[in-house]
């Protein structure tokens, strides 16, 4: 029964596997050559015992040195032919598998780049990375091995049996009776072992995650003196892992002894019947020797076989994980009727009855929001965490689609614009300043590839980061990001502001991106921003920043609670007044 379910699984997995294997198509000629070469090797392997039988029967038994030399020479020649085939095969197999991996990886990456954020929520970053690296390496190796040895094992078994029949039908029958049973046995063990190893993997993950949690929380654990508690917790999961591993491995290790025993008993049978037939039916001694030899080779092939089944089931899992990404439907793309001619010229933003919920969730994050922002205006957005500020931002460059209502830029529904045209004119500075590996210059010009040094410097000066950059070891060529210099949070924030400014955006979105700046720098920065003819939206926690804006939008629980400038909000909004008082402290009260 287990066997049937296993086959069924194989077929289901086969569909996805087929999709992955279609990536081999461009290399079909190379694949064919590789397989052909492998077949050459196989043939040599298979005729070796036959040649030996000739040496014994035609040479030694007949006392003919010439024959011995002749067949011996053929054997040596065949070996070299096989070697040459094998070496050339290496080139083709490596080429096919590496190019295959390269192609799959590339289309996977392209797919991921086209993902919407809703798509991203489905796949954690770490999982996408493993899919693009480990899983593809796994597939790549499987392809490589298939082109070299995997096909060999089953072919060797079949070919060996066939050759045995050529040599002597009756003796070969013994082998052919046993072989199918061994196949079934192997499949059964592997199917069972496969699911057991899956459990082991889960247990290993559990152990590692406790480890990781403990390493990152070590200060807290020490502070609360929870050493023993943690050790107890760990020992539990560790024990689980140990017991699971032992169980799985012990099952797998049954295969070899059983396999050997059965095949060895086959050899006994061959000897027994062989001896009878040599006496009665004139079977030659060399034939008996050859069959014994085939039996050993088949045994060796069987033992590789178990390894192959394991590799294939792993490859199947990888193929599943890769196709899962490839088959994901991207739910945010340019509409078929989007207009090429629309771009952002002025920076007028208009929300009309906008409501929004994240795909796959039940809760409305924004509800019935309407407001208008004129070109060049600076607007601060204030509100508690979870009030929907960042969500509101994301709708402007259409990182998500609205659930209801319309977002218009310069009077056009953002869904009618080409995403690239829309986003080209938007400068976005996210909450967490993220820099890419590369030089400072590269990071700033990231926003505009053809930016001149003058433009880059201007952007940095306005972002209040130019002086800091000039103090770095290689100024604008200093490397940041991985393996680069460490920048403080505030420096990173200013760099990412420079990156947005260099594009000369029509709409600038600052998502709490000045939080790590001191008051003076922030004031300077905001002053410099006034030079840009763009509409600016600032999410902030600091009242002092909000006061600077032309207008303030106060959000609470996804609704637009109040709207107006500082003075009017102080009069009309209780919440705003409370926030203001809490932040400005005792002596600032007079200011109001």
């Amino acid at each position, binding site marked *: 029964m287990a066997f049937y379910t296993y086959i069924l699984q194989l077929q289901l997995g086969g569909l996805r596997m087929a999709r992955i294997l279609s990536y081999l198509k461009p290399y079909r*000629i190379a694949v064919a050559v590789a397989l052909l070469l492998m077949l050459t090797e196989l043939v040599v392997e298979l005729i*070796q015992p036959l040649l030996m039988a000739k040496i*014994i029967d035609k040479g*030694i038994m007949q006392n003919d040195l010439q024959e*011995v030399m002749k067949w*011996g*020479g053929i*054997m040596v020649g065949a070996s070299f032919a096989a*070697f040459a085939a*094998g070496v050339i095969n*290496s*080139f083709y*197999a*490596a080429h096919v598998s*590496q190019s295959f991996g390269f192609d799959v*990886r590339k289309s996977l990456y392209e797919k991921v*780049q086209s*993902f919407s954020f809703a798509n*991203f929520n489905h796949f954690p*970053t770490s999982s996408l*990375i493993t899919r693009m*690296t480990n899983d593809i390496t796994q597939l790549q190796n499987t392809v*490589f091995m298939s082109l070299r040895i995997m096909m060999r094992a089953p072919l060797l078994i079949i070919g060996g049996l066939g050759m045995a029949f050529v040599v002597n039908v009756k003796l070969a029958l013994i082998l052919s009776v046993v072989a199918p049973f061994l196949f079934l046995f192997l499949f059964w063990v592997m199917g069972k072992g496969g699911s057991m190893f899956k459990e082991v993997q889960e247990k290993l993950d559990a*152990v590692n*995650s406790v480890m990781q949690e*403990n*390493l990152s*929380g*070590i*200060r*807290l*654990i020490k*502070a*609360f003196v929870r*050493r023993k508690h943690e050790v107890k917790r*760990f020992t539990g999961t*560790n024990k689980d892992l*140990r017991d699971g591993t032992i169980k799985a*491995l*012990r099952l797998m*290790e049954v295969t*070899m002894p*059983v396999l050997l025993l059965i095949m060895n008993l086959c*050899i006994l049978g061959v*000897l027994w019947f062989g001896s009878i037939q040599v006496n009665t039916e004139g079977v030659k*001694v060399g034939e008996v*020797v050859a069959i014994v*030899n085939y039996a050993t080779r088949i045994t060796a092939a069987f033992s590789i076989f178990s390894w192959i089944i394991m590799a294939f089931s792993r490859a199947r899992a990888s193929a599943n994980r890769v196709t899962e990404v490839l088959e994901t439907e991207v739910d945010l793309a340019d509409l078929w009727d989007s207009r090429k001619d629309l771009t952002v010229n002025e920076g007028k933003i208009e929300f009309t009855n906008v409501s929004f919920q994240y795909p796959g969730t039940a809760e409305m994050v924004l509800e019935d929001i309407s407001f208008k922002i004129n070109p060049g205006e600076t607007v601060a957005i204030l509100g*508690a*965490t979870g009030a929907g500020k960042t969500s509101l931002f994301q709708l402007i460059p259409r*990182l998500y689609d609205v659930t209801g209502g319309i977002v218009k830029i310069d009077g056009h529904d953002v869904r009618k614009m080409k995403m690239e045209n829309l986003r080209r004119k938007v400068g*976005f500075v996210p909450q967490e300043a*993220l820099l890419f*590996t590369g030089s400072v210059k590269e990071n700033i010009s*990231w926003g505009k590839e053809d930016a001149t040094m003058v433009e880059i410097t201007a952007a940095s000066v306005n972002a209040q980061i130019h002086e800091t950059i000039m103090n770095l070891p290689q100024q604008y060529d200093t490397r940041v990001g991985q393996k680069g210099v460490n920048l403080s949070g505030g420096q990173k924030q200013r760099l990412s502001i420079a990156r947005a400014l260099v594009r000369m955006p029509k709409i600038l979105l600052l998502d709490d991106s000045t939080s790590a700046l001191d*008051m*003076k720098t922030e004031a300077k920065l905001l002053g410099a921003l006034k030079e840009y003819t763009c509409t600016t939206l600032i999410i902030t926690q600091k009242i*002092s920043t909000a006061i*600077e804006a032309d207008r303030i939008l106060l959000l609470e629980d996804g609704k637009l609670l109040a709207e107006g400038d500082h003075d009017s909000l102080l009069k009309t909004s209780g919440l705003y007044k409370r926030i203001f008082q*809490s932040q400005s402290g005792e002596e600032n009260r007079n200011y109001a």
Partner: protein
Amino acid sequence: MLKQLKRPFQYKKIPLQLDEKVSLGKKAKSKDMGATLKRIWTFLSYNKSLLFLVLLMVLISSALALLGPFLVGVAIDEYIVTRNSDGFITLLAGLAVIYVFHSLSLWFQNYWMIGIAQETVFTMRTKLFRHLHKLPIPFFDKRQQGELMSRVTNDIENVSSTLNSSVIQVFSSLLTLIGTISVMLWLSPLLTLITLIIVPLMFLGMKWITKRTGKLFKEQQKNLGELNGFIEETISGQRIIKTFSQEKKVIAEFHEKGEKLRRAGFWAQTYSGFIPKLMNVLNNLSFAIIAGIGGIFALNGMISIGVIVIFTEYSRQFTRPLNDLANQFNTLLSAIAGAERVFDIMDEEEEFKNEKDLKELSHIKGEVEFCNVSFSYEEDGNTVRNVNLHVKAGQTAAFVGPTGAGKTTMVNLLSRFYERDTGSILIDGQDISLVKKESLRKNMGFVLQDSFLFRGTVRENIRYGRLEASDEEVEKAAKLANAHSFIMKLPQQYDTVLSQDGSGISQGQKQLLSIARAFLANPGILILDEATSSIDTVTELKIQDALQELMKGRTSFVIAHRLNTIQNADKIFVLEEGCIIEEGTHESLLIHEGFYYQLHGKAAVGAHA
């Protein structure tokens, strides 16, 4: 078509410097391999008798593996060639017994070895984990977490898989090798010598190949690592890439990196692909040599056909272990290197080492005194110099000052995460270096800057403050911490499972949870490291309220990053470059018009601007 056929031979070569010594040998020499092996042995030998049994089984199975083919040869020579059937049955029965025992001994050795290996890995893991928890904080601060993580996971895994397979394989390979050659020598020394011709060929070939593959694989790993980093960066940077419409640019860059990896991978795979081919050709060659030359010998009556059969079987049996040994050597080396890295950690000195005779600190009132305390971190110049301070039981003390002034250091010294260099720190008049560290920390409660959450429910996370607390107590603590209301809004309230990075709740809410934790712990001394990250105002207010409540009636130390939160402190210590330069209450410090006044002035001006 022709283009496709030519393509595999058109990859650009990767320049390799082959004249330097093979790196493997160097690595092995540079560290004391013997000592590491010995230590692994002590782990393995916890169960000596079982290990002995395994070795015995390996011995038996190797011997039987030799005996089998030998008897087959005998059967052919004595019975089949001569057509003699007297005693043939006995021989076959004997052979059957040998086969059965061979399989049994294989099974037993594996069965036991798996147990031993897993037990060993289990002990190693547990020991390592235990030890990690005894290491002092500086150990963790000095190291990258990722690197440490890789040691406690990958390296141990490496040891585990090697123990599972390699130990048996190495022994049986060696035994088989010795046994095979002995029997072959005994049967026909001349034919043996001729067969052995392939051994030097094999070594030469292997050396030629591994010299190249080692470097190529390194190159491949390097490229893979770079690609990995690139993927990670561009996926976590999606928001930026999307809003800046730079998808095409990153795809092009990805393409370039992928191409590099393809090239390195191609060469690594091609060269390493030569190995089995080499083994194959040598196998086939030796087979041909034995058959051909053995045939000539047989004609001259020097050996029998049975011997040829035995030799052909045996020649496989000694090229295979040689190949295995060569393979195992690499895994073995990497496992030893892994074990070494694990042992490195186990050799780190633990922080509770000399504590046996020290007192427990219990039920403190909370008076804290620093007398001439100085301290400096090894790696950077940050220091605390000659600090004196006195805080009475129940008072609230605050540390203020610019980044790097030593605020956090003060707290690190008080909790003995770091040890002061000179001077003394007293709690209730008791020098804290004379009490057990854990008893000291049990009297302290911490609300740390990065509110760490464990994977688990909200309830479990709060209960971490006092493991034996009842559900009612947990909820009471949550209420005191102003956390109850938001918890009740979570999908499963107190049973909501939080992920480790705490996604699903905000930074501010995390802080409320860690305050609840501190309420539950009910410590004599409270240490509070204010969060720097921005928290929305409403939550911030809740946090402030909760903290005021928490600080009531206990000695509290606040590391303040924003000044408006500490105006009610009984004592404010202003730090600069590791020294206390001012001390007093908010009002007195403002009147004094010193550094604090300046700091404060800045903030106030900012608010007015």
